[in-house]
């Protein structure tokens, strides 16, 4: 049925397609674990996309570009951080505003970068390993950001589950009052988490503009940030689940385009709605397991913290 589609190229393509979503969703996972709901992922991603693109073009170095993208995303997220943590603004409204602001600011910053080609980010060279059948392309045939995103998944899992700092972060997210009573620094922890989330989203955006597309176009994230937000819930706030969700979504998107290109006789309507259908189906299955609490949502997610005592 899959006719002429090469599974090797398909898996390789889905990993590339999923990487921006994975990076952004991992960042948001950490933010939400700290009890903050930042709906501005889309805005931070697009700022990361233009900052990364601009820095890469100006310096000629894609690595500097990714660093610039991460910094841009983090800087924007700190606007959100200051507004919500110090000025106690509403997190949902501020997050939405951040997305609008990011989209506008990015098109302003991007005025001079339309139609320019960024320096290429090559695949890492693993020598003879890259010539292996299947694994050579799928495991050893990617650029370094793909490996970074996978390492980040493991790293965040380890941090949240095994490290003391991770425990502090989770405590802040579960009950900021209790954490505060214990003498933990709630605001500082949250601010750090927000900045980390912004950096990850910025990295994801830079991956779009530097590798996946690769060029700067206004509005180029076109909704990826929202998908990343959904995937955090989909994953029940677990890094492994985020990886699965991102690859599933990326995979179905790439698969449906490949099936169409191969001329497989499935009506196109079903193919194009399949990524969304599958996401909804999985969300239904997961939520059937229990309430928000038992799914692993941090208890103080989205609540404001004001130290009264």
């Amino acid at each position, binding site marked *: 049925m899959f006719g*002429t*589609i*090469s599974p090797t*190229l398909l898996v390789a*393509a889905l990993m590339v*397609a999923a990487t*921006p979503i994975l990076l952004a969703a991992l960042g948001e996972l950490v933010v939400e674990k700290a009890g903050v709901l930042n709906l501005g992922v889309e805005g931070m991603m697009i700022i990361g996309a233009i900052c990364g693109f601009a820095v890469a073009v100006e310096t000629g170095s894609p690595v500097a570009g990714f660093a610039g993208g991460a910094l841009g995303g983090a800087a924007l997220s700190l606007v959100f951080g200051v507004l919500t943590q110090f000025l106690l603004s509403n997190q949902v409204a501020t997050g939405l505003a951040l997305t609008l602001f990011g989209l506008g600011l990015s*098109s302003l910053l*991007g*005025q001079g970068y*339309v*139609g*320019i*080609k960024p320096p290429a980010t090559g695949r890492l060279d693993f020598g003879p390993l890259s010539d292996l059948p299947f694994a050579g392309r799928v495991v050893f045939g990617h650029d370094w950001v793909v490996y970074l995103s996978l390492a980040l998944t493991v790293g965040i899992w380890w941090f949240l589950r095994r490290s003391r700092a991770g425990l502090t972060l989770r405590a802040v997210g579960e009950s900021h009052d209790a954490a505060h009573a214990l003498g933990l620094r709630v605001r500082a922890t949250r601010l750090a988490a927000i900045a980390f989330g912004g950096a990850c989203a910025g990295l994801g955006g830079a991956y*779009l503009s530097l590798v*996946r*597309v*690769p*060029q700067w*176009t*206004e*509005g*180029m994230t*076109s*909704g*990826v940030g929202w998908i990343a937000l959904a995937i955090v819930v989909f994953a029940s706030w677990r890094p492994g689940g985020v990886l699965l969700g991102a690859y599933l979504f990326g995979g179905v*998107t*790439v698969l449906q*385009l*490949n099936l*169409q*290109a*191969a*001329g497989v*006789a499935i*009506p*196109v*309507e079903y193919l*194009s709605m399949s990524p969304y259908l599958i996401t909804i189906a999985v969300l239904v299955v997961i939520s059937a397991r229990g309430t928000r609490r038992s799914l692993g949502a941090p208890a103080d997610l989205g609540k404001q913290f004001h130290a009264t005592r």
Partner: protein
Amino acid sequence: MQRRTFMGAVATAAILATGAIAQDDPVKVGFVYVGPVGDGGWTYEHDQARQAVEAEYGDRVETVFQESVPEGADAERVMTQMALSGADLIFTTSFGYMDPTMNVAQKFPDVKFEHATGYKTAENVSNYSARFYEGRAVQGFIAGSMTETDKIGYIASFPIPEVIRGINAAYLAASKVNPDVEFNVVWAYTWFDPAKEADAAQALIEQGADVILQHTDSTAPQAAAEAAGDVITFGQASDMAEYAPMPRVSSIIDNWAPYYIDRVGAVIDGTWESQSVWQGIGEGMVGIGEITDAVPEDIREEATRIKEAIGSGEMHPFTGPINRQDGSVWLEEGETADDETLLGMDFYVEGLSGEIPN
């Protein structure tokens, strides 16, 4: 219901108020765009034309635009907002704005609307479109002559007559020079999503296509083709010259400026009337971007000849004998397609594989 009546009353009051002092006020022209003005394609060209209007009339016009407006209920809200804030003429520049435009136009009989690429008109609604299929025929000829794998990838947006017409015109021209040519059509269901367009181009290239035609608005497929190396593409809606000479070997350019200047001028003079126009290469609304050196000399010359023949009306891209996909006769020998059939085209011509989604 009450709120609607109230809004209607407010609108009428607003229009009467502006009408009373209209003499010295600049004419306010609104533009509703489906993508961002920096998309490098469709919306970019509409915005270039908006700027041309400003340059032409200076202080006598004031233009406003709203970009990335989704097709559907949101579009209606945006148009209502523009009409309420005193726009005299509103250009709605995407097929999917057709019904929203008709609805809003009914509520604001004194505001004039110009809808692009649709087929409905009213007392205060004109529709205008370009015969992109004429450009597609030139593209199809180059594509069919250049392909070595005999596989041509086509990134389609939505299954609407305009897109289907383009596929048919390109296929007819390509199969005429190269009877073995095959078209792989991917429906992206978006006008603008660079990542998805890049993925679609990638998938087509992996299936062996060495020519990519696109009916989506971003330059992402161009970048994907460039990365692949020996794949050629065509600029869509805009010249996309930054990808010349390879992979972009030519382009279809939408030139809306003369039309927009003409229509805004008609509003200023008070001579505006509802109309329905469909202009092509001959009138200059459709332009063919420079054919680069990557195309062999003889093909380039022949492509230019086809372009000129279509422009002068001596050649029609849909000239019989042409059968429909199911084998039934559409056009007899020497017969050319009438505009009505073209405007509502919902079938593939014989030779194309796959089905058109509903």
